[in-house]
């Protein structure tokens, strides 16, 4: 309903604004539509504090542009107190704008937050002249809903959030974009690309005698069609990759603030992490996973007792581990990714994010219940949280503090995740990349939750398996291991 109201309001506003007449009724209508737009804009509903409290729209100066059947009206938005970004690759200045677009009777309104790359010209206060601009737009509805992010590279808009709500805006921006070369058509390495290639093969009949060619006759041409991988610019267009992966900027305390996708504002990213293209790309794309965001939101400063830090390094005790989540220290939980273990496909790296965020979530729950800055580990503490977190308490009891007869010590969090979180990990993987089969998601989700030790090729079991993995039928275990192996072997790694 509100969407229809938005369209009607925008269409009405545009109609009035683009009118050349000056009679009093038009002026009244213009004022009415402006008032309506003002009514629809609820800055106070924006979760981004800077937008909610520090910006104001200049309603007196509307920039109008028309191209083909598209009419655009843009209002400049200024910060009351100019804020600055501390970033190694973004300009310090931020820009905001209110945009209303009407095309074919359809009208939409957007509030955008603009970040400019260091090597870009300053934002020209219009989406119609972006040929020298490089940066990203955080796009919101007028009531503060984060619609996603559009990356701009010399006027070319990419809907990197792959949000349908942004298609209209991206297409409008691209109306004003003229490609300067074929290289701009090369996609970023953020997905699988294929190209259909028609291979034409001419066949000739060669008649020879004693090594001497007597005649050559054209027979026919056989055309075969193949689907081949299309090259993406993983090692090429650094600027484009940065645009795609621009995901966060920092305040002076090193904490990211109102990040591009809306999820990075809740984590602390160590430079070792933010300088790693593979991890940043996967993490940015995970912004499109509502399930992952739900878990990450637990670390939103408004609700969380713990901060989450993402870093890159090799754990001394577990040097071959792909990633490690450290328990809270002074209310800080750290996930460290091994830079030498990024040579698997991005979807597998996404699984590592999902796996580690589940560890972090359990630590956060325990910390919250302890009401301390570190978890006071003991059987008593675990018992004390049983009413609040019965499942976590049960897994710590059963696999650590009070192992039943016949049972054995095991990692409580891995046992918990193997039993209860496989579908959660699968959901995140599907939201990250919906092109794989159900079996592939299942196989990847299990990786890391099968247990410890060398996996037997016949049984699919390591010497210390998780209980949930043992409960999977043997043929299924072996099959899943095989699917995982094939997936790793046959897909492009995130980092080489």
């Amino acid at each position, binding site marked *: 309903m509100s969407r229809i109201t938005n369209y009607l309001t925008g269409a009405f506003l545009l109609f009035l604004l683009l009118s050349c007449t000056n009679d009093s009724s038009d002026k009244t209508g213009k004022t009415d539509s402006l008032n309506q737009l003002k009514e629809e804009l609820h800055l106070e509903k924006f979760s981004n504090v800077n937008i909610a409290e520090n910006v104001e729209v200049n309603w007196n100066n509307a920039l109008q542009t028309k191209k083909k059947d598209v009419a655009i009206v843009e209002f400049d938005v200024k910060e009351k107190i100019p804020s600055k970004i501390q970033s190694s690759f973004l300009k310090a200045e931020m820009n905001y704008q209110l945009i209303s677009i009407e095309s074919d009777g359809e009208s939409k309104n957007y509030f955008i937050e603009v970040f400019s790359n260091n090597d870009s010209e300053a934002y020209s206060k219009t989406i119609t002249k972006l040929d020298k601009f490089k940066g990203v737009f955080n796009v919101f509805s007028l009531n503060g809903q984060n619609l996603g992010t559009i990356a701009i590279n010399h006027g070319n808009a990419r809907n990197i959030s792959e949000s349908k709500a942004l298609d209209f805006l991206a297409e409008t921006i691209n109306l004003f974009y003229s490609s300067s070369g074929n290289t701009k058509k090369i996609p970023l390495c953020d997905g699988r690309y294929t190209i259909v290639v028609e291979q034409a093969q001419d066949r000739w009949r060669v008649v020879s005698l004693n090594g001497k060619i007597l005649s050559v006759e*054209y027979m026919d041409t056989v055309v075969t069609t193949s689907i081949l991988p299309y090259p993406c610019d993983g090692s090429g267009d650094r600027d484009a990759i940065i645009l795609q992966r621009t995901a966060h900027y920092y305040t002076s305390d090193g904490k990211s603030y109102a990040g591009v996708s809306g999820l990075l504002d809740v984590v602390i990213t160590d430079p070792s992490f933010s300088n790693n293209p593979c991890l940043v790309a996967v993490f940015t794309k995970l912004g499109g996973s509502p399930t992952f965001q739900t878990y990450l939101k637990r670390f939103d400063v408004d609700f969380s007792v713990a901060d989450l830090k993402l870093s890159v390094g090799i754990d001394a005790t577990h040097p*071959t581990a792909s990633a490690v989540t450290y328990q809270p220290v002074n209310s800080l939980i750290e996930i460290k990714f091994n830079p030498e273990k990024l*040579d698997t496909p991005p979807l597998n790296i996404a699984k590592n994010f999902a796996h580690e965020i589940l560890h972090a979530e359990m630590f956060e729950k325990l910390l919250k219940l302890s009401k301390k800055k570190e978890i006071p580990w*003991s059987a008593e503490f675990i018992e004390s949280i049983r009413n609040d977190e019965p499942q976590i308490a049960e897994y710590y009891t059963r696999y650590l503090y009070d192992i039943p007869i016949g049972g054995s*010590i095991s990692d409580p969090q891995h046992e918990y995740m193997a039993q209860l979180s496989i579908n959660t990990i699968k959901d995140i993987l599907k939201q990250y990349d919906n092109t794989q089969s159900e079996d592939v998601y299942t196989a990847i989700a299990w990786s890391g939750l099968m247990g410890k030790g060398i*996996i037997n090729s016949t049984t699919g079991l390591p010497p210390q398996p998780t209980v949930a993995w043992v409960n999977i039928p043997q043929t299924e275990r072996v099959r899943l291991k095989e699917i995982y*192996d094939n997936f790793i072997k046959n897909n492009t*790694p995130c980092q080489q």
Partner: protein
Amino acid sequence: MSTIKLIATIFIFSINMMFSQENNEFKRNSIYLNLNDKALESYKIDKDTMNAHFSIYLKKYDSKKEREIVTKIYDTKVKNIKTSGENPSDVILPNFSIVFYAYNEKPEKLKSLKGIKFITLKEFRDNNYVTSNPTYIIHKLKDGTYLKWLAITMDEI
């Protein structure tokens, strides 16, 4: 007309080759293993040579004594876990080795190693166990030929 077609054909073949090369540009290292090397914790090759694994000791756990010390510390931690206040994440016996799995795929048989780039087990271990995933594991057979397995490591997370 035919000339144009021929050029077109060659051109298309060139494009095709270019794409094929893209597809095969995955970096895949090779490690040469001496199956009698003490650094090799264990290996197993199925009779039908469809599956194999090669487990390589991490350097700090080369000595049996070191492994026993770590295991003893772990056992003590387990014993005292109820009252020690120990972080359960630290009550984990570390992996003593890194395991390469070749699964459901026969190895390539090589007559010689001529022209094949590889690193030795020592080089692999000295370089912090850095290799590609998957990695080719190469070892010698009694008849003087070699087997080359395409093997992956499982995520430890």
